[in-house]
């Protein structure tokens, strides 16, 4: 019962934080420097790990698909399988999980330490709402950066699949055939659906991490616990939301 209460409390505080942040949306132009800084952290510095992970995810997907589809002579559809899987599902989910692990944890740790060391209280004392200064720039930055990360992740994943399809001897499909199959069964709507999912996942991850960070109580030991809680909550939220968003966008 207490756990359920904690979940509902966390959900409520996240919604409250979102509402507060939206109230200060008009102040975003004055926080341009913070917005750019968050964009840099969320987008630019996350790109290398997104690229590496997506490349190898695409490669593994093509490898597994080639191994499985060879049995019933459907190797020529590997491009379609990798393309659709990455655009609609894997790309957004992988980017969101990386965001939760790399950026979300950092946000929670930063805000939790600010909270523990009473920097947040100091801001409140100076009549500076934390939602305006600490949360709004991060939410805005993730809204802008997530589609960019997702589209780059998609393209790199497709490229990884094409490389494996060409150079693995048991598959041996030329890139032209791979991308022709990818184009034949894909529409931009599939990519657009994936970008929308990435946008929702990223926004929720940052909101959860900010909420958990700002609600940290106690001493420095709580910072680590908050980070763990934020990452776990983010991952669960991503996967639960994934089902409902996918269902809604179908």
């Amino acid at each position: 019962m207490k756990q359920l209460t904690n979940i509902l409390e966390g959900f409520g505080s996240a919604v409250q934080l979102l509402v507060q942040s939206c109230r200060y949306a008009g102040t975003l132009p004055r926080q341009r420097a913070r917005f750019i800084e968050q964009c840099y952290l969320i987008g630019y510095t996350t790109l290398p790990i997104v690229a590496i992970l997506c490349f190898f995810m695409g490669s593994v997907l093509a490898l597994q698909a080639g191994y499985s589809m060879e049995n019933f002579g459907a190797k020529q559809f590997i491009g379609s399988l990798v393309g659709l899987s990455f655009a609609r599902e894997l790309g957004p989910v992988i980017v969101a999980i990386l965001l939760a692990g790399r950026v979300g944890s950092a946000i929670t740790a930063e805000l939790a330490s600010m909270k523990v060391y009473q920097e947040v209280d100091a801001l409140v004392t100076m009549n500076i709402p934390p939602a305006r200064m600490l949360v709004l720039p991060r939410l805005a930055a993730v809204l802008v950066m997530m589609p960019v990360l997702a589209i780059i992740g998609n393209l790199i994943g497709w490229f990884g699949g094409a490389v494996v399809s060409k150079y693995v001897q048991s598959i041996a499909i030329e890139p032209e055939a791979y991308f022709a199959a990818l184009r034949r069964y894909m529409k931009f709507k599939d990519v657009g659906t994936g970008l929308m999912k990435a946008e929702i996942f990223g926004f929720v991850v940052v909101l959860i991490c900010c909420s958990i960070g700002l609600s940290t109580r106690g001493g420095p030991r709580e910072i680590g616990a908050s980070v763990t809680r934020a990452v776990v909550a983010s991952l669960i939220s991503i996967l639960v939301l994934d089902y409902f968003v996918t269902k809604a966008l179908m």
Partner: protein
Amino acid sequence: MNTAQQTARVGLFFLLGLALTWVTWETLSDGKLFKQTGYTLIAGFENLKELKQGDEVRMAGVKIGSIEKTRLAGRRAEAVLRIDPGVKIASDATATIVMAGLIGTNYVGLDLGTPGAPSLVDGAELRTKITPDINTIMAEIGNLGQKLEGALNSITSSVSGDGKSPGLFQKIDLLVTQNSEKIGTTMSNLQDITTKLKDGEGTLGKLINDPKLHDELLATVAEIKSAAADAKVFVTDTQGIIAQVKAGKGTLGALLYDEESAASIKVTVKNLRDVSDKIARGEGTLGKLLNDDSLYLGVQSTLKKADRAIDGLGDSGPITAVGVAASVLF
């Protein structure tokens, strides 16, 4: 890192994302983001099957466009085809939905049409032809399978029996069992016959074993061939004669096929009939000669008189002869 550098990197990163999104859009939408090139044609079908937006349009196997959209129009389904610019479609070209794979990959195939036919313009409607899809083919194969199964069942029941009446094998078995003695005798006779054949006994055995008889047979066959050749020549000649007769050549041909001759013959026959009728009625000299006894009697009397006169002339012949000679000379 200063703020300016950070801002520049973020801006560059964002622009990269926009550019990649635009490239993806262009690639997956066949470059239709800003412009619609080519022209559209309408192809109406009873059923579009698995045809969907984005599928290819091919002419003689070459991609010349894509399906822009599919829609229902009254009691039929229509596919709007976007044809690449510069591709001319003959007005009598026919569109069919072609199955490219077993997993629902279809495209619209166009034939070339006739060379001199005018080209279709934007918005024109194509001729279409319905082709059987995999479901129809599978249904036909299913029907064929049922028929085959029925036929096999019939054969099986006729061979093995259906429980009520014995099958072919049972009948053969019964026949062999009941007639085993006769079959044994027949086999023995056959063995005797073949032994005799082998030993050159009998006509057939001699024919097989005696080379002289074989040579005579060959000579007979050669004679028959020669006779047949003569008969062939005869038949050929006869055919030539018949051809000439049919062509109306020669007397017989003219008689059979010349209408003028036929008319003349008819007239002649008619005249003959008139003459014979007159003769029968006793008209004319010949009729009277044949039918009137008085003429016969008259002639007989005259002949008698002439006979007597000749007799009389015999007595005075020399005198008369001298008189005649003298009258000639003097």
